[in-house]
């Protein structure tokens, strides 16, 4: 993609001169729309076209979604807050035609679609699936961790029985395995192309696939200029789902939110992805612009009191914090009311809905009583840490909390930590006495959330919380089928303990905001990246 000449680009895109070429010649954006091009602006930068590579950032996951196929995908449902959303409860075929799971739940057999081909025209075989899965579990880092969450740990678990039959053998049955096959990580690569470009030092062709995807997905990458734009071009032979209506989608990187907003309002771009809450609130009142604010599933913005800090070992102090927080003011100031409140819920837990509002609400009287009853009646001082990388919501939240906590004798000083240090300090060393945190789980079950955020030593348990019963409950429930009679009681018990012990005080469930001007078909995904496949333009 380094050769920028127009002639080579024409060669590269093949003989599709005509309507498909128009947008790159001298035409106006309005005409470009009608000829099947959609322009999206985003503030994030894509740093690799290969999700498995070390250092690939979140924004790059969209390439795995749009350019590669998985065996299975999730269904689609109406989203709260408008638009569409993926549906965790429905698993649909993508490259797999069908699949069977043995009665003991240990063997999964997939039949691959016989008409599925890679971009170079070669048939997709079970050997390609095997190679791609081997790669994901061997690459190390994030892909390997995510595969492990579904019980996929070693290459010997995967077998290509014949050209179209692929078998996974599990060590234990788990409800997470099938959904884990639908996340972006286990995408299927054209293994012959990859192996032809592998070297002894680089057996998984990381360097080659980093800049040159080789897949079977709905879109190919026509052009990638890092830091500027990514141009998707439709693969007309795609069999993984309904053929996208757009022939070309251009994702342009524009760092300044003000500039992105101006471009969208003027209609020069059709979509602005992941816009700030404030812009979402203001744009939603404008005619002609559609704003979708989808609450992010299994994600909660929390205040975390760290058990390693002595005053927070006192349950009364933690409860006092939960009563002192000015929830509504924070929700309106930091989130502009976008998202779902996570306070003032029912005392009694009768279902397994998650995220769920905590039973706490702002009540300064109650907070003062609890402080008086604690061992720290005279108050104490503690730093309240926030990440500068997430300052857009953390800063106003922390300022309002600082004011409220002073009312109950807890004097806080706001400590702003640079983005690069945040992970180390908050999650790896778990050394921040009081901080804000925003974990969201990809696999949408409460026990999965608890696994990461409430079990001792796990990455997002930044409060150093340990509860024997939670440890046991999570271990018991994590792989248990959701229709198992023990599932609901176990999960409800976890909720009870979580609200009793309060290692994480829920604030609100954040929303992912997307604004569109002349585009349609947006679908929210748990990975919070743009799926360009269902997008279309609306005639103006």
């Amino acid at each position, binding site marked *: 993609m*380094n*050769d*920028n*000449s*127009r002639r080579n680009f024409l060669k590269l895109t093949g003989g599709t001169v005509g309507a498909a070429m128009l*947008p*790159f*010649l*001298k035409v106006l*954006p309005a005409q*470009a729309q009608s000829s099947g091009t959609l*322009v999206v*602006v985003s503030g994030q*930068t894509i*740093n*690799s076209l290969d999700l498995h590579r*070390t*250092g*690939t*950032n*979140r924004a*790059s996951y969209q390439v795995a979604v749009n350019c590669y196929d998985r065996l299975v995908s999730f269904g689609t449902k109406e989203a709260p807050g408008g638009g569409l959303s993926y549906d965790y409860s429905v698993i649909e075929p993508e490259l797999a035609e069908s699949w069977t799971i043995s009665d003991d739940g240990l063997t999964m057999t997939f039949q691959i679609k016989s008409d599925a081909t890679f971009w170079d025209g070669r048939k997709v075989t079970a050997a390609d699936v095997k190679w791609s899965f081997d790669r994901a579990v061997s690459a*190390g*880092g*994030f892909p390997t*961790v*995510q595969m492990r*969450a579904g019980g996929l740990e070693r290459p010997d678990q995967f077998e290509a029985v014949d050209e179209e039959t692929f078998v996974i053998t599990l060590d234990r049955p788990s409800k997470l395995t099938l959904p884990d096959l639908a996340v972006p990580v286990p995408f299927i690569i054209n293994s012959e192309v990859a192996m032809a470009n592998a070297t002894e030092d680089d057996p998984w062709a990381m360097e080659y696939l*980093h800049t040159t995807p080789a897949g079977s997905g709905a879109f190919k990458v026509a052009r990638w*200029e*890092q*830091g*500027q*734009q990514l141009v998707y071009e439709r693969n007309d032979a795609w069999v993984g789902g309904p053929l996208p209506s757009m022939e070309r989608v*251009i994702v*342009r990187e*524009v*760092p*300044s939110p*003000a*500039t992105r907003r*101006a*471009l969208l*309002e*003027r209609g*020069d*771009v059709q979509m602005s992805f992941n816009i700030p809450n404030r812009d979402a609130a203001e744009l939603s009142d404008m005619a002609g612009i559609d704003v979708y604010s989808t609450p992010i599933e299994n994600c909660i913005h929390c205040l975390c009191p760290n058990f390693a800090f002595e005053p927070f070992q006192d349950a009364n102090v933690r409860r006092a914090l939960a009563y002192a927080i000015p929830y509504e003011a924070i929700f309106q100031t930091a989130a502009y009311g976008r998202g779902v409140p996570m306070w003032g819920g029912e005392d009694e837990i009768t279902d397994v809905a998650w995220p769920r509002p905590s039973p706490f609400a702002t009540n300064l009287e109650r907070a003062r009583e609890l402080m008086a009853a604690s061992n720290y009646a005279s108050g104490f001082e503690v730093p309240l840490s926030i990440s500068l*990388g997430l300052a857009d919501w953390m800063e106003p939240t922390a300022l309002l909390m600082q004011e409220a906590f002073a009312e109950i004798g807890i004097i806080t000083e706001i400590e702003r930590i*640079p*983005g*690069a*240090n945040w*992970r*180390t300090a908050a*999650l*790896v060393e778990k050394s921040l006495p009081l901080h804000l945190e925003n974990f969201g789980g*990809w696999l949408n079950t409460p026990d999965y959330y608890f696994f*990461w955020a409430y079990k001792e030593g*796990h*990455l997002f348990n930044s409060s150093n919380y340990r509860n024997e019963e939670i440890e046991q409950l999570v271990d018991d429930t994590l792989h248990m089928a959701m229709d198992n009679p023990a599932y609901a009681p176990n999960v409800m018990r976890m909720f009870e303990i979580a609200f009793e012990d309060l290692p994480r005080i829920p604030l609100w469930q954040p929303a992912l905001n997307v604004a569109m001007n002349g585009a349609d078909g947006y679908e929210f995904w748990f990975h919070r990246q743009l799926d360009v496949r269902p997008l279309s333009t609306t005639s103006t």
Partner: protein
Amino acid sequence: MSPRSKMILGRVAQAIPVVMGVVVISFLLTRALPGDPAAYFAGPAADEASIAEIREALGLDKSLFQQFFFYVGDLVRGDLGTSLTTGQTVTSDLAARLPASLELTLVALLLSCAIAIPLGVLAATRPGTWVDHLCRVLVTAGVSMPTFFTGIALIYVFYYIAGLAPSPLGRLDFIYLSPQHVTGFYLIDAALAGDLETWIAALKQLILPATTLALFTLAPIARMTRAAMLSALSADFIRTARAAGLGSRKILYGYAFRNALLPVVTTLGMVFSFTLGANVLVEKVFAWPGIGSYAVEALVVSDYAAVQGFVLAMALLFVVLNLIIDIAYALIDPRIGLK
């Protein structure tokens, strides 16, 4: 060997210890940054084992001395390493982004000089008149408005309201393809390719960001021109020239201006160097893929290779810039020797 090429060689030789010092200091400073790149790049759900794997892959598990040894070894081979933020080699990042910043900065400075120098000269020859006041107002307004504000204001007026300016989408609108890479300067590359359409498109994209930067850099240049002209005009040799009955044009441009140019060139060199590094905000507002935003992004996530590459590139650039300024001195003022 001519004295001039001897002087140039001498200056280049002098630069070698400077560059070596920069290599050591940039290495140590990046390592002194708090933060753990391995933990950052391990991704959203990494555990300790995968962080350790990444640390090993990045060579960060080695001792500082060993890391430095590897770094210098790579440097000698011309390998600046790979940036984690962009996923590209630092060499290719710099090759793509440095010309973008240079093009923007140079166009802005040309624009700025074209306004500031005549304005400064006029203000100096007519102190206290409306030209002088206009100069003062423009200069004050230019420095007192932060560049991101000027940038957004210009976008608002000329793009959003009036619709005159093209979409602020970086160096080229998405309907154009970048010209074949020769120098990396789109204006030059498009001209070389004989592609007038792309040339005009690239120029249009440049106008707003270059104006923003030019407004900001007007002040030092105009003030310095005015001050230097004032002191030159009150010098004895000007009085002598006037007494000898030379034409006012000859006095102004032949004697006063030429003498006033030296401090102006010095200021220009300084303005150029700080604009190149400091136009991050303009780059962000106009989605300009330049070197400033690259360095800041890299710094925020402790992307060692990218930061070191940036510092080294800037150091080399300044060595060249100083050389050019010294040569310019010698051309302007024959009294300054070439030794």
